[in-house]
């Protein structure tokens, strides 16, 4: 950028025609060089961002010894699937994976439903106390989640749902930010659509379910992504709500792997393979909805 603009500023000065042509030629060359430099810089930075993941993939296929001796190489000298065999055949890894899947699916499905239901009510239905409910939801968004670790445990324990799927799933079912997103979206839909259905005699739920919800696809996808990613990657809530091995999720299990359980010594291929498999579902989600995700993150600014 700098090179180009300095040059343009110089161009503004009056010059005789041949000199101007010369300057223009020089300017074009400079511009090309500038672009090349920009690309080179971007490629180098991208490599720094991507290389760790490539190393992760290759190391998961190395033997333990090779992972320690030549950590940098991207192609294993001896391809070994020992780490994966160990994970899937001789560890609790499949149980962790199943638990994460169960929790994520339940949370995502129910959260999308509850959050859009509330978002619709707050956007369209007239009822006493609506302003208060909305203000409360906004206030809740301000509470940092880490502060909730001990409090959540206390209530889960009190309710007798500690160490159960209910304790893992229920507290994650609602996300204040999601209510906010859905409310904003429903407000952007023209009212006339609902008026017609209302005149035809449809009740509030009917209007919500068969008229408005189908129109809310973009916002729903946003909520699905946020809640899938959020519950799949969640760690702290599962630490405080469960203790038995049968209820361990991927995050909790892999965290325990990292601190040495199951593995004697370093066993980097094993740990990296576990972390890699854990990344795959969110990565797939990311590549499917890439455009949407980018816009979601960008949209967050406007709210």
């Amino acid at each position, binding site marked *: 950028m700098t090179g180009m603009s300095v040059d343009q500023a110089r161009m503004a000065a009056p010059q005789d025609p041949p000199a101007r042509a010369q300057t223009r030629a020089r300017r074009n060359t400079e511009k090309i060089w500038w672009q090349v430099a920009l690309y080179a810089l971007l490629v180098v930075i991208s490599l720094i961002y991507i290389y760790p993941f490539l190393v*992760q993939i290759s190391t998961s296929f190395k033997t333990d010894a090779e992972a320690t001796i030549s950590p940098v190489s991207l192609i294993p000298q001896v391809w070994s699937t020992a780490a994966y065999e160990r994970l899937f055949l001789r560890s609790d890894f499949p149980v962790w994976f199943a638990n994460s899947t169960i929790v994520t699916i339940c949370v995502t499905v129910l959260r999308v439903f509850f*959050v859009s239901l509330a978002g619709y009510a707050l956007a369209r*239905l007239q009822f006493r106390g609506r302003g208060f409910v909305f203000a409360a*939801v906004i206030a809740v968004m301000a509470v940092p989640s*880490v*502060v909730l670790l001990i409090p959540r*445990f206390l209530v889960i324990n009190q309710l007798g749902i500690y160490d159960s799927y209910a304790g893992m799933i229920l507290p994650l079912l609602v996300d204040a930010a999601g*209510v906010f997103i859905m409310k904003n979206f429903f407000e952007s839909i023209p009212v006339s659509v609902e008026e017609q259905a209302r005149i035809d005699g449809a009740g509030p739920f009917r209007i919500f379910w068969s008229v408005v919800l189908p129109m809310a696809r973009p916002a729903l996808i946003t909520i699905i992504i946020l809640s899938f990613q959020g519950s799949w990657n969640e760690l702290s809530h599962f630490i405080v709500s469960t203790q038995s091995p049968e209820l361990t999720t991927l995050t909790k299990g892999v*965290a325990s792997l990292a601190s040495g359980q199951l593995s004697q010594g370093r066993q980097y291929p094993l740990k990296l393979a576990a972390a890699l498999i854990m990344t795959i579902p969110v*990565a797939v989600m990311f590549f499917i909805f890439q455009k949407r995700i980018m816009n979601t993150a960008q949209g967050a600014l406007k709210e």
Partner: protein
Amino acid sequence: MTATATAPRRARNTRSGIRRGEALAGWVFTLPVILILGVFLLIPVLMALWVSVSDWTGRGSPLSANVGFVGLQNYAAVTTGDGLATRDFGTALRNNTWYVILVVPLQTALSLFLALLVNGAILRGRGIFRTAFYFPSVTASVAITVLFLFLFSTSGVVNEILGAIGITGPNWFADPRGLLHILFGAVGITDGPAVLAEGDFLGLSWWNWLAGPSVAMTVFIIMAIFTTSGTFMLLFLAALQNISPEVQEAAMVDGANAWERFWRVTLPQLKPALFTVLTLGLVGCWQVFDQIYTGTRGQPAKTTLTPAYLSYDASFLDQDWGQGAAIAFILFAIIVVLTIFQRWALRDRPVSARRARQYQLAPRPATASPATVAANQVPSPPGPAQTPAADRGDDKEAKP
């Protein structure tokens, strides 16, 4: 419309007839959200508030009759005592403060830099770069921590690369030395001056407060910058794309060079995005938990302890529930206070008199007051008003 005008009463009746049951539906629709937020957010916070002023030891219900009220004793134990609890809290606070001081500015600067690079209008394939920078943000913090434990292990990738250029890398995750202490040590200062070594705050001498982040904590700092820069880049990118090119062009015509245009034109327009990024960064940085739990559990020598992890550790592992809850609430207060402070510091200020004078067009050079002349001679880059100096913009910079 006509109906409303001619017969308002009937219209209202029809309306309420059609909208019958809305009030009920409104409450039914919001009920699940209200219930869950109430039961798993509001009540828990109230219960924890009670625990933080009680002597509950983790056995039975904290609401049972044999749990006593101890006032602010738990808060006092972690802030004004001279025991381990206070020292641990002080250490955690120090560690996290250094973490915030380094992570927040660096992640903001890096994400802004990446956004500016990617935003280059003629750039092809910017989607690929955007994806590359954003990808680390979608992966779980647990997975990223496992990866970094490997990258920064003693014989890991980073040390291998450092070795290739002749540097012996440290024993990253096992090195408790503070970066600033290492720097001081390099110039021969190994013990702080008596003033710093003797005075203390939260059970930690001032000299120890000035240790800087430990080598181990530095890895977490790098990791935080690596994983968050992509998200924040997207926020800046959105803001950059909303800036109209006309203002840029106007500044260009006025002879502002790229550097001046960035500081005087682009950055002021990015202020809302900057505010968002700084706030999210600050709030996020005070909540470091997953990484510490997965990676180091506060070790080596407690230099990666954070208040969030300490609060967990005190309650769940040491069964000191009152203290754990007290730490959580102090942390909450810190986050709220800092956010409010930041809001205040970045508020929209009325333009200062000096700045206002700079922006004034100077149509009457003859009558220009000495103050105006002085203001214009301030060696700051020329403002948009000074069109006559436009072509000399470059020369001016080269002179000093």
